[in-house]
């Protein structure tokens, strides 16, 4: 158990270092918030004139990195106290990004007060939570992205092995996601070697798994006996390669990469456990002869996938 303590301490240290080094958000004069994915709410703080506030020409809205591409609100409404305006848009906004709303010549009780700028974005924690939930349930890697099926069908015969594999996989997934992020940002992008990312990522994962295998064998033979078998299998799991690739493609930061890896790992463990529960029952039930074994496992997975479609309603974060 000493090993686990050291690992936990190391990861906490790493997290703190990244937190301090992380970029701090730029300050603007005000901040608004997303209401739904098509609405932005702006608090003025003072009562404003309705005829001014509902005129779309007084607002200019753009996504933060490109001020040239304007999105114009379809309609604007003011609340009863006349202090908060709600901008409605025709198309859904990219709520993971930051928007800037410039408001021209604010008119309050007949007097012009001046122009203000509002920054509209989600909180960092909100984005991370959305990412975690997305990887875990809404876009579960097994049921909606169909990755890691080989392992999924291979080790889901017993609950006990499913739990062991799930835990081992989650640990390796999180650690290799953060390692691949570091390699990608500090080595591959720095030297413009992006095209090598497939080779580098799979190499990293393979070396990492081999290293954990060797260390665990010496440091904690008991844990090794429980988890050692699954370690080697992890290399052939598509998810372990897909997560760093997806992270690199959408250029996620360290925290987002870590969260995405954690979500993917927990999601896979959950899928594996659910499947193991069903397959233990299947063993003793009467399945048509031709469907025995894998075919019926596929049908069951299909039913799970249908059930997981229901989680798409969770995408409100």
């Amino acid at each position, binding site marked *: 158990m000493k090993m686990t303590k050291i690992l936990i301490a190391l990861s906490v240290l790493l997290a703190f270092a990244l937190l301090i080094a992380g970029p701090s958000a730029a300050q603007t004069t005000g901040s608004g918030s997303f209401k739904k994915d098509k609405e932005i709410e702006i608090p003025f703080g003072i009562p404003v004139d309705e005829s001014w506030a509902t005129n779309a020409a007084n607002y200019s809205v753009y996504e933060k990195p490109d001020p040239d591409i304007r999105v114009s609100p379809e309609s604007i409404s003011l609340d009863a106290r006349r202090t908060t305006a709600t901008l409605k848009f025709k198309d859904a906004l990219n709520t993971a990004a930051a928007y800037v709303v410039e408001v021209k010549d604010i008119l309050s009780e007949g007097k012009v007060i001046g122009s203000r700028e509002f920054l509209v974005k989600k909180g960092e924690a909100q984005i991370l939570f959305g990412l975690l939930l997305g990887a875990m349930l809404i876009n579960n890697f097994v049921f909606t992205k169909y990755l890691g099926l080989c392992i999924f069908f291979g080790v889901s015969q017993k609950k006990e092995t499913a739990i062991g594999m799930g835990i081992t996989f989650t640990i390796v997934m999180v650690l290799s996601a953060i390692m691949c992020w570091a390699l990608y940002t500090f080595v591959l992008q720095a030297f413009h070697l992006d095209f090598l990312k497939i080779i580098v990522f799979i190499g990293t994962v393979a070396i990492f798994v081999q290293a954990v295998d060797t260390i665990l064998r010496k440091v904690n033979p008991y844990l090794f006996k429980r988890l050692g078998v699954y370690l080697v299998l992890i290399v052939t799991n598509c998810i372990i390669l897909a997560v760093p690739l997806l992270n690199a493609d959408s250029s996620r930061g360290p925290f987002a990469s870590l969260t995405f890896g954690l979500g993917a790992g927990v999601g896979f463990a959950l899928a594996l456990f659910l499947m193991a529960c069903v397959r233990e029952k299947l063993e003793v039930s009467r399945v048509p002869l031709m469907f025995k074994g*894998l*075919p019926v496992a596929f049908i069951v997975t299909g039913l799970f996938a249908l059930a997981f479609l229901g989680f798409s309603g969770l995408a409100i974060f």
Partner: protein
Amino acid sequence: MNRNVQLLWNGFIPENPIFRLALSLCPAVAVTTSVKNGVMLGLAVVFVQVASSCTVTLFKSFIHPRIRIPAYVIIIATWVSVIDMVLPVFSPAVYKEVALFVKLIVVFAIIISRLELFASKEPFVPSFFDGMGMGIGFLFGLALTSAIREFFGAGQLWGQDILGFKPLLIMILPAGGFFVIGFIMATFNWLEYKITGKIPASGGGH
């Protein structure tokens, strides 16, 4: 039968990677929403399988047995990088949908298992035909699955409207892929039972 022809046939039906060996299932479900995607990825796999089988069989005397797995992975990753650069130029529209899976060919179990079981022991010509057979079997599996799914899910084949309506929308949803593969596997089992009279074993490993 000529041995080379036999090797080709072996990968096609008796040891079909998807339906008999049950290897590399992820792409079989994921990209098979339309025939075009399925066939494109299948062709990419044929290329990678043949190229890496040939590479391994040529260099097998230089690869130390103890580091063979990392060596195989690097060889596969090299060829995957090649196809990953060629495909976007060749057909950008299809690549956009199958991009992730082209990169993931590296971890397809079927390729590394053929290298380990066949190409590392046999001479050049049989290795070529074995790789070809397995690749074509995989392509066949993808094409069959995607044809069923596209026909019933979208009423189309290769992007062409055939039915004019969508009989079973579930087929192009995630769940449909699992159902179709399950049913095709069961059909293969049934065929084997009819032909050989044996009750098939539980349909491959993992």
